[in-house]
């Protein structure tokens, strides 16, 4: 089973040299800490920066330099700053090679819900709807089940959608799964997790073909 950092680490293995990457709030943010050696990627934050660096040293934080999670950050050499209209021009125009975000639910047809629980939580979609509607390569990072033990990989989402037929891959604490036209296709098991466990935790249609390897992380 993977913890949050494990999920981030597995997704970080997907990064390719030269990619521009947008990381959502939560687990996705941790990916920046696990970029494999030899791989150079540039992180975009949709509030207006390309080339986001690590947190500043204590005492060097700048109120005018934050990421989309409102955290103080730094800018790397070769970075650039721009306004929100330009930032989403990059996103909508598919100039970003990978988008990673969290989710409350995903469906076997690639729908995603992550912005609203009617009557309970209404924080707003922020940039998520623009990201999922435009990105060609979307990976969801989340736990396989919610805190009540219910599966978050569903036949059909129950919560209001953020986007339709957009998620390509999901990495959870239990597995790496691709979304195909026939449903969730199991690609890798998390260390120490059995196919049976993954099946039990997946409400949607899970396709298991042949031997399923354990992740190498």
């Amino acid at each position, binding site marked *: 089973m993977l913890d949050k950092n494990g999920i981030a680490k597995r997704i970080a293995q997907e990064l390719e040299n030269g990619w521009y990457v947008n990381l959502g709030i939560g687990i996705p943010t941790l990916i920046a800490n696990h970029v494999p050696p030899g791989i150079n990627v540039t992180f975009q934050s949709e509030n207006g920066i390309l080339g986001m660096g690590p947190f500043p040293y204590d005492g060097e934080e700048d109120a005018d330099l934050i990421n989309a999670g409102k955290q103080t950050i730094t800018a790397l050499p070769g970075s650039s*700053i721009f306004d929100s*209209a330009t930032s989403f021009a990059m996103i909508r125009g598919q100039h970003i090679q990978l988008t990673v975000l969290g989710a409350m639910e995903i469906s076997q047809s690639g729908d995603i819900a992550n912005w609203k629980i009617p009557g309970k939580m209404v924080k707003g979609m922020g940039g998520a709807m623009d990201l999922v*509607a435009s990105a060609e390569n979307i990976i969801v990072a989340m736990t396989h089940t919610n805190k009540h033990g219910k599966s978050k990989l569903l036949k059909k989402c129950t919560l209001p959608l953020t986007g339709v*037929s957009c998620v390509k891959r999901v990495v959870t604490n239990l597995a790496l799964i691709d979304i195909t036209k026939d449903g969730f296709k199991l690609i890798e098991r998390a260390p120490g997790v059995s196919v049976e466990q993954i099946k039990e935790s997946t409400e949607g249609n899970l396709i298991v073909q042949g031997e399923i390897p354990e992740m190498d992380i």
Partner: protein
Amino acid sequence: MLAFFHLQYSKMDKRVSSSEAALKGVQDSMTIMLGGFGLCGIPENCIAALVKLGVTNLTCISNNAGVDDFGLGLLLQHRQIKKMISSYVGENDEFERQMLSGELEVDLIPQGSLAARCYAGGAGIPAFYTPAGYGTEVASMKEVRYFNGKPHLLEEALTADFAIVKAWKGDWHGNLVYKGTARNFNPPMAMAGKITIAEVEELVAPGELDPNYIHTPGIFVQRIFQGEKYEKRIEQRTVRSKS
């Protein structure tokens, strides 16, 4: 203050004396755009002056709604806002309370569509198509049209009676330069105000800003002043230690 206005040698000199003077003409029930992302790059002084002015029933267009005791949260506290048009309104309990109780109307818009709608409002583009929000609640009542086999929504431009932005430096003509990610929504919103007010940390004479590196050309700005005081509060102070 009258004396100040008499000293203006031309209307290209857009200086006003204070945040209070900048808000001249702001009335109840108006639509106001406010720049900023979270608490970064918000027009602190004009927000304080709006509280003091006491106008109510405002429609505010702003990416966020501040926090309980800073930014637009201050206007919410004083029940001056009738409707918020935003993309993300977490980090604000009073907001959530007013919204869930129905006291506050809320129109939630995808962040990119919000930025593009402000830009379009300033750029004389009445409407455009975007893929964001297709198949979601956001799409209800909106025209769907396919381009290159992909569904898109028709989104209309946003404008405002007043747009209030915050820049780092500005000159008397209204030319603006922003610093870091405090830029965010300020440039597109500066374009979309019938009257655009800019508050700046440093107001300089024309010629002091390099024309090649102006972020918002002065033509979009009608009034400018140096903000009385900047707190520049940090929402999430994240640091690493030097060791």
